[in-house]
């Protein structure tokens, strides 16, 4: 079994077998980060470029740590300090990077499809680290890894995804991944944040959070993305918190052994109350730890080898 693709652009195009291979490989990589010497020589001499056109701490750091623990060299380019501010187009930037012959490019961009365009133009492997409101495949993979390690399986579980479903690439990637792996996905949020045709993706939609989290095994809270919500989709953060935050009261509706997830960064007191974020159900920091392992697995599976 091998991953026979050049790029990881989204969960939508991955098969159940490919997802399982990535998660199994990531499980094995978890151990490397617990060693005293957290480095293996696997990707010696390979270079990875992190091309970030949007703000990111967690994802960029996670990719960088993953590459470094595999002994690859990493170069970070963020749009705000690059020739992008001088007016260079994405294609020109990419062509110039390609001319320097790196092995893999990780890209985050506010435009959906930007990684796909690079993938078709460049011979290097491309990993999508988030494109607009489209997909964030590595987040969904680390979420599935966390669920598998906590629950032992994904199939047959009920997963509630709460928040701004319309603008969330995390929600979209997780919907593709979790439904493929056999979970029952329920989404909930204000009506203005639920895409009208969302049920065609194989999920159940409801406008009340209580309905969504009832008997849920997994509760995934999404961040309210003030940078993406240009028009007013809800009256105020306070009102949002009143109707759609996860708190001590409504979590009682979920299964007793439910896990609470959040892709970060959290708005404490808005979508999640602090006592839940730090409480016994929270696996939010496991997600971060597993993120490094998932990214190591992808770098390992995608790089190297001339056919």
């Amino acid at each position, binding site marked *: *079994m*091998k*991953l026979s693709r050049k790029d990881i652009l989204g969960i939508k195009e991955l098969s159940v077998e490919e997802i399982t*291979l990535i998660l*199994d*490989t990531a*499980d*094995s*990589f978890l*151990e*490397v980060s617990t*060693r*005293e*010497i957290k*480095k*293996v*020589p*696997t990707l*010696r*001499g*390979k270079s990875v470029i992190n091309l970030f056109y949007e703000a990111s701490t967690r994802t960029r750091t996670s990719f960088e740590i993953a590459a470094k623990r*595999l002994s690859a060299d990493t170069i970070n380019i963020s749009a705000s300090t690059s020739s992008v501010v001088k007016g260079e187009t994405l294609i020109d930037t990419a062509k110039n990077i390609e001319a320097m012959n790196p092995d893999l490019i990780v890209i985050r961009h506010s435009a959906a499809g930007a990684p796909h365009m690079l993938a078709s133009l460049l011979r290097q492997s491309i990993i999508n680290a988030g494109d607009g409101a489209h997909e964030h495949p590595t987040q969904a993979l680390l979420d599935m890894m966390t669920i598998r390690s906590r629950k032992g399986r994904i199939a047959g579980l009920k997963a509630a995804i709460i928040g701004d479903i319309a603008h969330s690439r995390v929600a979209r990637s997780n919907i593709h991944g979790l439904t493929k792996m056999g979970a029952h996905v329920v989404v909930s949020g204000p009506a203005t944040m639920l895409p009208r045709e969302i049920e065609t993706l194989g999920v159940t939609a409801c406008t009340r959070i209580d309905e969504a989290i009832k008997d849920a095994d997994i509760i995934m809270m999404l961040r309210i993305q003030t940078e993406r919500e240009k028009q007013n989709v809800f009256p105020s953060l306070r009102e949002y918190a009143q109707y759609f935050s996860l708190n001590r009261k409504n979590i009682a509706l979920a299964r007793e052994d439910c896990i609470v997830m959040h892709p970060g960064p959290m708005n404490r007191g808005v979508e999640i109350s602090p006592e839940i974020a730090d409480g016994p159900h929270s696996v939010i920091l496991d997600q971060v730890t597993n993120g490094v392992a998932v990214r190591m*697995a992808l770098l*390992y*599976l995608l790089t*190297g*080898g*001339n*056919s």
Partner: protein
Amino acid sequence: MEQKKVVMDAEGINRSLTRIASEILEKNKGGEELVLVGIRTGGVFLAERLKRKISGIEGKDIPFGILDITLYRDDLSTSHRKPRLGKTDIPFSLEGRKVVLVDDVLFTGRTIRAAMDALIDFGRPKSIQLAVLIDRGHRELPIRADFVGKNLPSSLWQAVSVNLTEKDGKDEVVIENNI
């Protein structure tokens, strides 16, 4: 010429392991500071069996770890197929320990080179020794085993497989002509 030949049966394997267990204890003057590390996959089961034998003789538990050498292979950047990565589980420091690496077949020596590089990342062992069930020759690196079950002269086109009950349902060593 016969295609497939059994060169060691279950009893033979067991006798070899019993002898190796005694030799390990003799050479190390007991089980003090001793740890066994099995190389995935075949070496793991052999190391487990050696651990049981040594622990039985010494009357105390010998630490035992599992090593996957995939990340240390020297052919990763040239081969297109990525070997499936298994879990490494060495839940103790190797600092100052006498490590006995265990594998089923010693061939080119490249696996052992990778394994030694990996072990050093878990601390600085006092020594690393090598125990193998079969030494089939054809070394490509300056590596030799300290404990050998059976020396099996072989041709490069032959395949030597160590089948073990734990993974193959039966204990036997088989040599086959691979034409």
